[in-house]
């Protein structure tokens, strides 16, 4: 806001950095209170910009501009309850805030410390209101190391980040450590790639450092092509704390000896693109990117590449091909990307969340980091907890937490009190995990053992109304569209799987279909070049493994027990339950429901197109789907 009028301090030395930090810190803490409005994509969808606008208006009307700054921050995580507003320093947590509440929040809550009961979160089973963010069960069981700063900084203001300790890890790395030491530290921390495969980050860095480049050029890339449907932690990190990602990249570049980096970002994420562009620009202006960073002699800059909307480009070799202006097809990796990657130079590609872990490791040390998590999976992981769960949103938890803790303690259980059926992890490369494995500790190896995988961190919770054949069909559909087409087993095999599953879902399944799917699955896994093809059968194979009866019900009894597969279900109205409220008559696009007020309605199944509109509006469970 006041940014335009003031000179931007180019920070040229370590001393200048610390002086600047002191100034920014003073400014940050000069106010006793501030209002933090979540500006993540979820809350924006809920109208948080109007809330922030109104709060600012009230502040202006009352001449409080200098006393109460408003921070439009990145995602706070609890998207389900958005728009979220937190009043600092008490951290009073308000949810589902609307512009009409602005006046009360500013004048009564912020200025007078009053707690606005009606905007507090209530723990459903205890009917107890909670005042502070950290006491909300959704937050209480988390460990927000990477995400912690999100609610406290304005992502468009680098000074907030510096005030709270930002770029101190960079200082340490540049002036107190040798590149080899940094790599050693990252290796010792046990950090593994957060993009899905879980490759040890330190080892990757080491091989890029050792790799010979014909002209000395090496690259680092931040993979922000978050393509797994159901995962959005990378977007939120970039939207909420872009400098933590940049700081990690600069440290990584210094360690491996690269002078150019790129952020490859999905085009479906316009806000994240805006934030990272702004952050890079500010980092340059303040002297964290460019020539001779902080007087260390090390030079490095970062450019941005927008993705073209292809899932396969999340794969390293496909991503680099598309950066070179080619079609995004993976290539065999007899020669690793760490030897010959982008433009045939040694290239280190890490995921957004991986980069954001780096400053933490450098600052707090490998031993501290390695004390969190399980034997082979260290640190925390951010998951997007979504689907049929009460508290949807982004969560950060230590590795090794059980699925039950995640879904019930943090997630608050299943929506509508229904029965848990499965949780899907790892997106199109992962699988479904049934109820019997709810006590499984979540880490890279455990998830792989049960036929799923960590992936980038999507956790989609499913209840008894989710059909496992339909979910498998969904992923196979996705993969049919997204297979780049280079390897025949993936291109054709996934298509054949789709045909078989379509048939099963339509009630035309045959004996032997399941065995055929399993056989095809193993052939695809063996015959594909890239990780995406190799893991493509996972959603189907894991579903068959744990939910075979449901598949058999579709094939043998021609029934969809969950009531999802259109061809296998019928809608009818239970005359016992129908109150004759007429709510279902108007939404029906085919006018196939008839009846009078207060008399049971009748649904003409011969005209029904099974759109589900009546099912959604009926408040008396009188519409039966079976």
């Amino acid at each position, binding site marked *: 806001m006041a940014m335009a009028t003031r000179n931007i301090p180019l920070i040229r030395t370590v001393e200048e950095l610390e002086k600047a930090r002191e100034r920014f810190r003073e400014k940050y803490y000069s106010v006793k209170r501030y209002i933090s409005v979540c500006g993540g*994509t*979820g809350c924006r*969808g*809920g109208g948080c910009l109007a809330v922030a606008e109104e709060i600012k208006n009230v502040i202006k009307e009352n001449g409080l501009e200098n006393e109460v700054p408003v921070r439009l921050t990145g995602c706070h995580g609890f*998207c*389900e309850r*958005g728009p979220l507003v937190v009043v600092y320093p008490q951290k009073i947590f308000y949810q589902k805030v609307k512009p009409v509440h602005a006046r009360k929040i500013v004048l009564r809550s912020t200025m007078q410390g009053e707690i606005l009961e009606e905007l507090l979160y209530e723990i459903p089973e205890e009917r107890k209101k909670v005042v502070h963010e950290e006491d909300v069960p959704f937050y209480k069981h988390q460990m927000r190391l990477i995400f912690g700063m999100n609610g406290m900084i304005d992502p468009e203001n680098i000074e907030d980040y510096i005030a709270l300790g930002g770029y101190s890890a960079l200082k340490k790395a540049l002036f107190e450590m040798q590149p080899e030491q940094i790599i050693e530290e990252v290796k010792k921390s046990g950090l593994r790639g957060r993009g899905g495969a879980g490759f040890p980050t330190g080892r990757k860095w080491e091989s890029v450092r050792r790799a010979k480049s014909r002209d000395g050029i090496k690259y680092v890339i931040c993979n922000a092509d*978050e*393509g*797994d*449907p*159901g*995962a*959005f932690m990378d977007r*939120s990190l970039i939207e909420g704390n872009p400098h933590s990602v940049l700081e990690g990249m600069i440290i990584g570049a210094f360690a491996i000896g690269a002078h150019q980096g790129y952020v490859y970002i999905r*085009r*479906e*994420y*316009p806000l994240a693109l805006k934030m990272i562009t702004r952050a890079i620009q500010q980092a340059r202006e303040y002297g964290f990117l460019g020539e001779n960073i902080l007087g260390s002699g090390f030079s490095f800059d970062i450019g941005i*590449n*927008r*993705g*073209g*909307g*292809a*899932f396969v480009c999340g794969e390293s070799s496909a991503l680099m091909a*598309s*950066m*070179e*202006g*080619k*079609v*995004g097809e993976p290539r065999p990796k007899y020669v690793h990307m760490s030897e010959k990657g982008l433009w045939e130079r040694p290239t280190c590609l890490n995921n957004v969340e991986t980069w954001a872990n780096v400053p933490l490791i450098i600052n707090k040390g490998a031993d501290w980091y390695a004390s969190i998590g399980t034997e082979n999976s260290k640190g925390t992981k951010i998951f*997007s907890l*979504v*689907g*049929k769960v009460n508290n*949807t*949103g*982004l969560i950060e938890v230590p590795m090794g937490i059980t699925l039950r803790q995640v879904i019930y303690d943090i997630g608050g259980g299943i929506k509508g009190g229904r029965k848990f059926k499965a949780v*899907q992890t790892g997106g199109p490369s992962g699988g479904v995990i049934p109820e019997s494995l709810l006590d499984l500790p979540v880490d890279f190896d455990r998830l792989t053992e049960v036929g799923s995988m960590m992936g980038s961190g*999507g956790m*989609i919770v*499913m209840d008894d109304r*989710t059909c496992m054949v339909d*979910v498998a069909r*969904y*992923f196979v559909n*996705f993969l049919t*569209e*997204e297979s*780049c087409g280079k390897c025949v087993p993936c291109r054709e095999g996934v298509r054949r799987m789709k045909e078989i599953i379509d048939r099963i879902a339509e009630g035309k399944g045959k004996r032997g279909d399941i065995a055929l799917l399993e056989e095809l699955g193993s052939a695809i896994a063996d015959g594909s070049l890239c990780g995406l093809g190799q893991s493509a059968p996972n959603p189907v194979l894991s579903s068959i493994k744990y939910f075979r009866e449901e598949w058999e019900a579709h094939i043998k009894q021609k029934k969809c027990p969950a009531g999802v597969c259109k061809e296998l279900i019928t809608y009818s109205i239970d005359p016992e339950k129908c109150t004759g409220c007429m709510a279902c008559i108007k*939404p029906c*696009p085919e006018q196939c429901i008839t009846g009078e007020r207060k008399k049971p309605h009748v649904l003409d199944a011969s005209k029904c*197109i099974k*759109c*589900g*509109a009546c099912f*959604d*509006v009926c408040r008396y469970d009188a519409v039966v789907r079976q």
Partner: protein
Amino acid sequence: MATEGTLGGGQVCLCEKVEEILDRYNRDVSQLISILQDIQEDFRYLPKEALEKVSEALGVPMAQVYAVATFFKAFSLKPKGRHVIQVCMGTACHVRGAPLLLDKFERELGIKSGETSADLAYTLESVNCVGACALGPVVILNGELEGHCSQAKADSIIKKVKGQTS
């Protein structure tokens, strides 16, 4: 692929625009995708003439330009509508009923997903996750996100795109 004649008398302007975009990226081959993205943004599709111009200016064979233009979802060789409705088909939206929503849009707009109405008023698309999973099912109308999209909300979107154009 015909140009569909949507640019009216704007052929000159097409050339200028494309030149300007090419210059923006210093006619750098590695920026092919970015160049096509900017053309797509400006014209709402990739006109054939523009692709030829890019191929010539960058010294890249037309086959490669065409391969890239058809590989990525971001690109369309046909003009898109003035309104673009995107129904999110991410996993979270899927389990919360997105397929029924898409059915509804297809039925009531009279076009299939991926198609544009004959009067270029609206385009219906599905997208694989926009990362607003907590708000599922999600529909995006001209870049604006509509969370927890019920059938009733879908009705108002349909009204909007039809009302403003017909």
